[in-house]
């Protein structure tokens, strides 16, 4: 079947078997191997990508179902050679070890912060509960997402219109 998919802002036209899962399409047809596969039961979330802005498990979406839609993968986070604050935060907070879950975690974290720019620890844990990490014990992933939230808020404050209320402290991270 012929499909046309936008991935990380670039359009691709491909001919795929209907049974091809989006994860394999990204990895094998487009060479975007940042999207990983870690299970066969839609459990681990290593394959998480954004589909029209929503975080989904790309091992449980058919490539043909992405026809005409927008996909964002971990490779799309970095813009113009600049790491996304979430990527930097994972690095700084030691939010990864073997790196295999990391792309999926980043995409879930990204989607979470889009919906909820200032999540609590509980909300972060819930937000990434579809992503399994076998290495970190999640403590530093949670910290990284909190840190990224702060970075993004600071960046928004700097670039955007001046905040109406200025908090007494510059940093609210714990």
């Amino acid at each position, binding site marked *: 079947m012929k499909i046309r998919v936008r991935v990380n802002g670039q359009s691709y036209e491909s001919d795929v*078997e209907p*049974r091809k899962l989006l994860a*394999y399409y990204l*990895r*094998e047809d487009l*060479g*975007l*191997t*940042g*999207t*990983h*596969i*870690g*299970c*066969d*039961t839609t*459990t*681990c979330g*290593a394959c998480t990508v954004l589909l029209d802005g929503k975080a989904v498990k790309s091992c449980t979406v058919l490539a043909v179902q992405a026809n005409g839609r927008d996909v964002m*993968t*971990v*490779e799309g*986070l*970095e813009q113009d050679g600049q*790491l996304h604050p979430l*990527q*930097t935060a*994972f*690095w*700084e*907070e*030691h939010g*990864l*070890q*073997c*790196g*295999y*879950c*990391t*792309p999926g975690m*980043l995409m879930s974290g990204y989607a979470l912060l889009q919906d909820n720019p200032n999540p609590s*620890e509980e909300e*972060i*844990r*819930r937000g*990434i*509960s*579809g*992503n*399994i*990490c*076998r*290495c*970190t*014990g*999640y*403590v*530093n*992933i*949670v910290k990284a997402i909190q840190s990224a939230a702060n970075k993004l808020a600071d960046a928004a404050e700097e670039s955007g219109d001046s905040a109406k209320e200025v908090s007494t402290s510059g940093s609210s991270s714990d």
Partner: protein
Amino acid sequence: MALHQTELRPLGKCVGRKEDPRFIRGKGRYVDDIMLPGMLYMYLVRSPYAHARIKSIDTSAALQAPGVKLVITGEDLEAMNLAWIPTMANDQQMVLATGKVLYQYQEVAAVIAETREQAVDAAQLIDIEYEPLPVVVDPFKALEPDAPILREDREKKSNHVFHWEAGDREATEELFRNAPVVVKKDVRFQRVHPAPLEPCGCIADYNPSTGKLTWYVTSQAPHAHRTVLAMVSGLPEHQIRVISPDVGGGFGNKVPIYPGYVAAVVASLKLGKPVKWIETRTENITSTGFARDYHMTCEIAAEEDGRVLALRVKTIADHGAFDAAADPSKFPAGLFSIVTGSYDFKEALVEVDGVYTNKAPGGVAYRCSFRVTEAAYLIERVMDVLARRVGVDPAELRKRNFIRKEQFPYKSPTGWTYDSGDYEKTLALALEKIGYEELRKEQAEKRARGEFMGIGISTFTEVVGAGPSHTFDIMGIKMFDSAQIRIHPTGKVIARLGVRHQGQGHETTFAQIIAEELGLSTDDVLIEEGDTDNAPYGLGTYASRSTPTAGGAAALCARRIRDKAKKIAAHLLEVGEEDVVWDGVSFSAKGLPGKSVTMKDVAFAAYTNLPEGMEPGLEATYYYDPPNLTFPHGAYIAVVDIDKGTGAVKVRRFLAVDDCGTVINPMIVDGQVHGGLTEGFAIAFMQDIPFDDEGNCLAPNWMDYLVPTALDTPHWETDRTVTPSPHHPIGAKGVGESPNVGSPAAFVNAVVDALAPLGVEHIDMPIFPWKVWQILREHGVTE
């Protein structure tokens, strides 16, 4: 924390990981990411039966299927003398089944096709006729005289694999005969699986024109794998290049050689093309090395005040169909005899009997130094039983029995020499930090209100870092490890090691060690591992051995370079070598203030301005054979609350105080501890691989083999004490596994402590809610 580390003297600092930039960009390179031109795909046909005779295999339809290049069966391998391969435990294991299958999901045939899809489709066309045989899943039943003999290939017509023991039987029994107090408990450590996020897989790429096989494989021990492959396949070892690219977690799962690997190599040899085999999660859990599965009976003889005298342990070890444990050769039960733990037992006797059953083979060390987890769990669990029996607080009982600081080096009754430790200090810090007294008060109040809150302590001792080579070998290969360091003219360093990390951060921590020794910064040092054509020989990364062995090799290798550098520095400083002083960042001349040269100066001179007659260059190789193991320890405390209505256990707090000797990178140590605690938590509360009577694996994937999410996992608290190892070059001991070794007992002790008012002394893991509910119910407790 600094991401880029240009600072000198980086040891002990939180340096941002050098490996992370590729991972956070999705640019890691794992085996399945590698696509080679003309690459074929392999898929394995597996047995639905746990025990059955193979009557026939019809591959004709599969061979006709689109894209299929080759189908391999056990008979084909027999013709090549490759139907069986040796395991690391002096047993042998089938590659593709011949005659009969011995466990569900056992490999029976391999299909190689142009695409993954074609291989899987064709595999479904292979028609295998089985005749089911009686299944044995219970190791105790397997030992009964009328049990069916599972292993027809062995001379010994019994399902008994081995008997092994340590300690002094007579002396132990004598103490038991006269002991005022004896406690006895049956304790099970259930079958679990390391299940790293990346499953196992490989690409075998045999080039017929050069005769060279390049083997990309998810390997924790690439050099050992190369040697084994050479011995098994008959390929010359220098014609085999093993590349272990980025590895998505190992935890012991990626130490053995699996049938799929061998089948892929055979396929590539036959076809002269690269063949990729990547297992599914289901295949990973159902067929690759499981861990634990120990049925233990523990007895402690003690004085009335709880001071311990002797320990007696009998164990039935269920190895499944093949003993494919990844233990050092002389230790069929791994380092299980460390079971006297942190306590000063006078005598001990430890016995282990291995048994075959119709289950997947293995007995790997899952984030653990060869069965030390079973040992630590057992002793920490039963010490709590003793505390209860003699009416002493579990913290106090431990203090009474600790090996004292001044007793180190301490010779244990089962033959270990503990290098160093300060158990009282570590426990004291943990008790203070968690607020033990307050918690006990809170617990008393809650008990008065009929609520169930528990506090669990585990003060474990680990044993890690195998060698030394006089005692430790795997298939005869001595367990040392290695480093090779080369300093380029501009002072930049490339270092290669014989180990292979899978997330532990070697690219950073080993750079820190080397930079520290050479007076450079971490950014000056590039660490490479995992390519046998480049790195010196080493036994690999497992059993927390990288820092104790390769870390030692890295430091001593750097010192070897420093020795030469000193000579060059003397030349540059125009003084005698004996007048050159190294202060950690530069060489200076005694009595000549202000005159110094850095390692970078020396490096440049090593290629441009050498003393007469000196060999150019600045590099060294070091094979480090440690004089002893290292013995990290810790004090862990768990606080739990029990929901009376559902039996659910909530881990309210968990504090891990670790002592792993000298700390190289505190951030990484904390990360390792967080991860290990999470695995320990999962084992305590969620994980088991049960089988039904037909031998069907009832937890074959991540729907039923439960891995905790961020929502399930408690928030971990950590702290540490530092008792350096006296014999390790930088005093480091290794930490990756301590949290997995030490934590299960803390969790279970906490739950049992909560239920202690009901007279509960033990609950087997995993502690599912219904088990707790059942106990509450039996005692008339209900919401």
